Structure formats: structure tokens, C-alpha cells
């Protein structure tokens, strides 16, 4: 198979000591610049373009790859510690990781982000190398209907699943859609909501909005809650290495997602105890029901 041969040839080139050094320099620089909020991977590569002028093509390409991955990873650090995503890709990290850091588990959160980046990057690169020709066929089948369905799924998910209120979710969705109409319509070239201001023709960038919402929002929220300086800085407690328990939790969550719907039994067990008879677990509550008159559980898992 030619894919393997090309891959091995590339790996052989990448294994040269000088190239590995370039990769290390690239990752370090990329992480350092990617940590700055508002500077994403693409901008990092553009900024550090002059650094690679003196290198040969293979070295500069590999250094760029290092810079790109470093920039992708660097955004997670500010997301976790400052709740300030550096680019759109790390917004989700800010949602989950910052909560971990506030709970005093900043170290494991950083470690999970780093190891998660490594594992996911490795898998994604492998998948890209082997599956890309086949995925292209699938992508070409996608027509307007499929894209519309995907969009609807995304909108419903973010508005219904995030946060505690569907009304809030829908409102933020529509405000976002309204902001997205600012600028030149990509299909027809019609300027919308620009009011004759040339700066508005480009629209509002995701990065600008992310920094405004997360960084400024966090700052204003914390400031509005403080009454004097009774706040404390939450130190990055815990080892930066993931403990065995963290590994177990991360992988168990993954496995749990996969097997979530596979078994009614496991589902019921995970969901915990019976609502009205908390001394009993679900299945026991059903089994022990005397003569079948035991009140039905209101949980979804027991309705099946």
C-alpha cells in the first residue's frame, strides 16, 4: 500500500535530530504565542512566519506543524485558568476546564487538556492520513438538506442542552444569528446591517466575540459579585500529572458515553436510586414491588 510507504518516508524524515529540534522549537513558540487570548493557531502561524525563513522546506513545514499544534494547545491554558478562550476551538475547554480550576483541580485540568490534545491530535492525524480519501466521498454526498439538518441539530443542541434555561439558550442563539447577519452576505454579496460603516462589512469575528463574552463577561461578573477584596486566588492545586483516578474517570466517561444507551440495566444503575424510595436502587424497587402496586418510578430509565 502506497500510503504506508509515503507515511514511513515522512516519518523517516521527521526522525532526524535537527528536524525534531525544529519541531520542539515550533511547539514551544506556538504554545507561548497561542496562550495570548485572541491569537489563534492560524494567526500564530502567520505571526511566526519570519522565524522559518532560514530553514529548508522540510524543516520549516515541520516547524509550522509544531507551531500550529502548539497554538491549538496554548489556547486551552488561558481557557482553564482565566476562562478566556484564545480561539473558537477552546471555548468548550473554557466551559468545563475553568470549573475544574475553580474547584481546585487546575493541575489535572491542564494535564487532561495536554494529554487529550496529544491523543486526539494523534488519532485525528492518523484518521486524516488513512480515511481522508473515503471521507471525501461522504462529504461530496452532503447537499443543502444535509447541511440544513446538521445546522438544526447544532442549534437545538446549544440552545436546549447548554445552560439551565431553554428560553435563555434560544435568546442567545437568536442574538448570535442576528450578529452573524452583520457584514457581506457570503452567497449574494449583499451588505447587511452595515449602515454604511466600512468596518462593519467584514462582520464580527468569532475571536472578538469570544474574548468579549468570556474574558470581559467573566471580569464583569466577578466584579459585580465582589464586595471588597474577599476573593482569593485559587492556586493550581494537585499534581500536573494525571493520577490513576483521573485516568480512570476520563476513560470511564468516554466508555460510558459509548455504552450509555446500549443497556437498560447499566443505564438504570448509573442513574442511581429510586426517586420516592431512595433506600432502594431502581431495579430493586421494581423487583420488590409487592403485588405490582409499588409506585412507578418517574425516571425515564424505568419507563421502558
Amino acid at each position, binding site marked *: 500500500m502506497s500510503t504506508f510507504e509515503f507515511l514511513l518516508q515522512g516519518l523517516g524524515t521527521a526522525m532526524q535530530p535537527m528536524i525534531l529540534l525544529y519541531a520542539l522549537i515550533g511547539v514551544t513558540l506556538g504554545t507561548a504565542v497561542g496562550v495570548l487570548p485572541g491569537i489563534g493557531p492560524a494567526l500564530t502561524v502567520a*505571526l511566526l512566519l519570519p522565524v522559518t525563513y532560514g530553514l529548508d522546506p522540510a524543516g520549516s513545514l515541520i516547524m509550522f506543524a509544531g507551531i500550529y499544534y502548539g497554538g491549538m494547545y496554548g489556547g486551552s491554558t488561558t481557557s482553564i485558568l482565566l476562562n478566556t478562550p484564545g480561539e473558537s476551538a477552546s471555548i468548550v475547554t473554557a466551559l468545563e476546564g475553568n470549573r475544574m480550576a475553580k474547584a481546585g483541580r487546575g493541575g489535572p485540568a491542564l494535564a487532561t487538556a495536554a494529554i487529550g490534545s496529544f491523543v486526539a491530535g494523534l488519532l485525528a492525524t492518523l484518521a486524516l492520513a488513512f480515511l481522508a480519501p473515503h471521507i471525501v466521498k461522504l462529504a461530496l454526498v452532503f447537499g443543502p438538506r444535509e447541511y440544513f439538518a446538521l445546522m438544526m441539530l447544532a442549534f437545538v443542541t446549544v440552545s436546549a442542552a447548554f445552560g*439551565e434555561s*431553554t428560553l435563555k439558550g434560544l435568546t442567545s442563539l437568536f*442574538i448570535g444569528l*442576528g450578529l452573524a447577519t452583520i457584514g457581506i452576505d457570503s452567497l449574494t454579496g449583499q451588505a447587511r446591517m452595515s449602515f454604511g460603516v466600512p468596518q462593519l462589512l467584514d462582520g464580527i469575528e468569532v475571536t472578538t466575540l469570544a474574548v468579549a463574552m468570556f474574558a470581559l463577561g467573566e471580569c*464583569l461578573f466577578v*466584579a*459585580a459579585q*465582589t464586595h471588597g477584596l474577599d476573593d482569593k486566588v485559587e492556586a493550581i492545586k494537585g499534581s500536573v500529572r494525571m493520577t490513576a483516578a483521573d485516568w480512570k474517570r476520563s476513560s470511564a466517561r468516554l466508555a460510558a458515553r459509548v455504552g450509555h444507551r446500549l443497556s437498560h440495566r447499566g443505564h438504570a444503575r448509573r442513574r442511581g436510586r429510586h426517586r420516592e424510595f431512595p433506600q432502594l436502587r431502581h431495579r430493586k424497587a421494581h423487583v420488590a414491588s409487592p403485588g405490582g402496586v409499588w409506585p412507578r418510578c418517574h425516571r425515564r430509565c424505568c419507563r421502558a
Partner: protein
Amino acid sequence: MTGTPGTGRSPDGAAFIIAGLLVAFGAVLLWDASLIPDKGGYAGIGPAAMPKVVGWGLIALAAATVAGAFKGRLAAVPRQNPVPLLLIGAGLIAQIALLHPAGFALATGILFAATAAAFGKRNLLLTLPLGYALAFGIYGIFDGLLRLNLPGGWLETLVYGG
């Protein structure tokens, strides 16, 4: 809508302000969409279609917010301290206004001092120079290492060059 049901409070004033802003945004979208010469084209959907949908959607959501406020179904708003918010807002406006006339370092130093004051450090003699020094260093990093042009004041131009 899973707010605290029936807390018995009078309708929240904030909900009406939010609803008013939503209606205003939706109205601007509809007004702007009405100015677009929309021929409809082949599919009957032109560039004005989406703003109209979003505009009416925002107005409907405003109505839902008002209805939720009357029924007390909205989540309780935590108590807010307005002074720090005003301080940070004023600092941000001052930074944006001073960015080009006074330069990045001075404008950001003022924003730093205003934010520090909002969080309780009111000693301007300490926070202003500190913020200025920090912003000066950041300007140096952006200008020297990354070659990104931030608006420079007289001192930045003097030290780092134009």
C-alpha cells in the same frame, strides 16, 4: 424554562429591559432587511430572508421573556454591585477613546487602574504606574517579537522606535 417557579416576587425589572433590548435589536434587523432590494430569485429566498426570520424570532423571544417575568418563571438574578461595573465600563471606554490619541500603553494603564479600583485596590498612585509599565512591556513584545503594530504613544515611539 426551569427557573424557580412561583417565587411570588413582583415581575423583575431586568426582564423588561432585556425584552426591550431584544425588541430593539429585532426591529433594527427588520428595518435593515426592508431596505435590501430583495428580488427573491429562483428559490424565493434572498439575502433579506434570514434577517427577517431572526428579527421576528427576537421579538417572539422578547414576548416570551415578558410572559416568563409575569409568571415568575425566570431564574432569580443574583444581587449585583453596580459601582465596579461602572468603573470597568468607564475604564474600557477611556481605553478605546484614548487608544489612538495617547497610545496603547497609557490607555491600557488607565484601564488597568480602573479595573484594579473595581476590585478594591483604589490606590491610583500604585496601580496607574504599574498598569502603564505592564502595558509598556506588552507593547514591546507585540512590536519587537511579533511585529504587530499597536497604536503607539510618544514614549513607545521613543523607546521601541516608530
